[in-house]
């Protein structure tokens, strides 16, 4: 029983130390996650998410602002969650913008190809020679 109590005290000491590290690590983690979120938002902006994925980008920005507010209020856990969500929202915004961009380009190309195919068909049907036998 005495042995157990000593063990318990040692564990308790470990716990206190561990909590300190965890708390400290949590703040640092939040800072890193905020940076990741910010980077993701910048990437989305570069992918023209403002034009092609406005809703998703706005969600990411709002969540990033909320994460910062939580970090300012020392709510590391909430800040961490919101920062992680902001990052994934921004990734979705970026990917949505890329998809819309590619689809727009594919549609333009489809239209060009239709024209080109018709033109090619016309020119094979009317060789230059036919005009003067």
């Amino acid at each position, binding site marked *: 029983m005495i042995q157990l109590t000593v063990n318990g005290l040692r564990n308790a000491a470990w716990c206190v130390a561990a909590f300190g590290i965890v708390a400290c690590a949590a703040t640092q983690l939040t800072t890193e996650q905020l940076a990741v979120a910010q980077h993701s938002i910048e990437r989305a902006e570069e992918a023209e998410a403002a034009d092609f994925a406005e809703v998703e980008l706005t969600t990411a920005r709002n969540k990033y602002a909320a994460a910062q507010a939580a970090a300012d209020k020392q709510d590391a856990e909430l800040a961490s969650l919101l920062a992680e969500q902001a990052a994934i929202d921004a990734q979705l915004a970026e990917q949505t913008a890329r998809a819309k961009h590619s689809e727009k380009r594919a549609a333009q190309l489809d239209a060009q190809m239709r024209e080109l195919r018709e033109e090619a068909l016309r020119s094979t049907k009317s*060789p230059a*020679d036919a005009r003067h036998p």
Partner: protein
Amino acid sequence: MRVMTVSLAVLAAGATWGLVACEVTPRKSADFPQARSTVESVAAQNDVIRYASPDVARARDYLSLAESRGAEHGVDDRVAAHYAYLATQSARIADQRAQEQAAQARIRAAELERERILHEARLADEQRARATELLDGFVKGTGATRTARGLVITLDHALFGKGRAKLNANAGGSLDAIAQFLAAHPERRVQVEAFTDSVGAPSYNLELSQSRADAIAMAFIGRGIDAARVRALGYGEWFATPEDAAARPGPPDRRVEVIVSNDSGVIPALLPITAGVP
């Protein structure tokens, strides 16, 4: 009774080991049906399977995190809900990536086709330019006239002696050029039309003109042109009207015209000049 035992054990463990005891808490079932159905419906799409399986794997990882967290802390736990949200967003990212990649594949296919069409158009242009060059050279060399019936070459009057249907020995030059052109354009046909004046018996004139047309036709066949592409017509004095004679140069009695068709291979019938054919 069993629950009681477990609870007692937890209490006892908590008293001695503190937080370490968390591990023995029994698991409750907890799932996030909306997140799961989003992940699974996205994961089933063909383009997602083809292009976005890492995103799907990530979504599934978040989903199991959400479910095991939910099992420990209940579905209302904000961290569990957080993971469910990450799972849903990962699935949406997978969906968008698949759409992007499918569009990119369409773009690549279209660009390849465009290259091919442009390449073929360039080749066709070059071929047309060569054909035009060849045609121009032929027209210049033979003195051919471009008409609605085709390229009309009036042969040298010295090809035949007066009243004769045998080709003179020196007749080869322009016939060679025509035969060469025909060999280079297998789609074109040739028609030889021979005429006489109205001196002498019409039946004799008709026979003479036909024999002359045949002689020229045989000259083409002898130069390797398929007989099916060659036609010989003797008109005798049918077109030897004064207007006709006035409209055409040289002595009409030995006039032979070679008509080379265009690419269609069709040569419209000769109509009397008085009917207004150019």
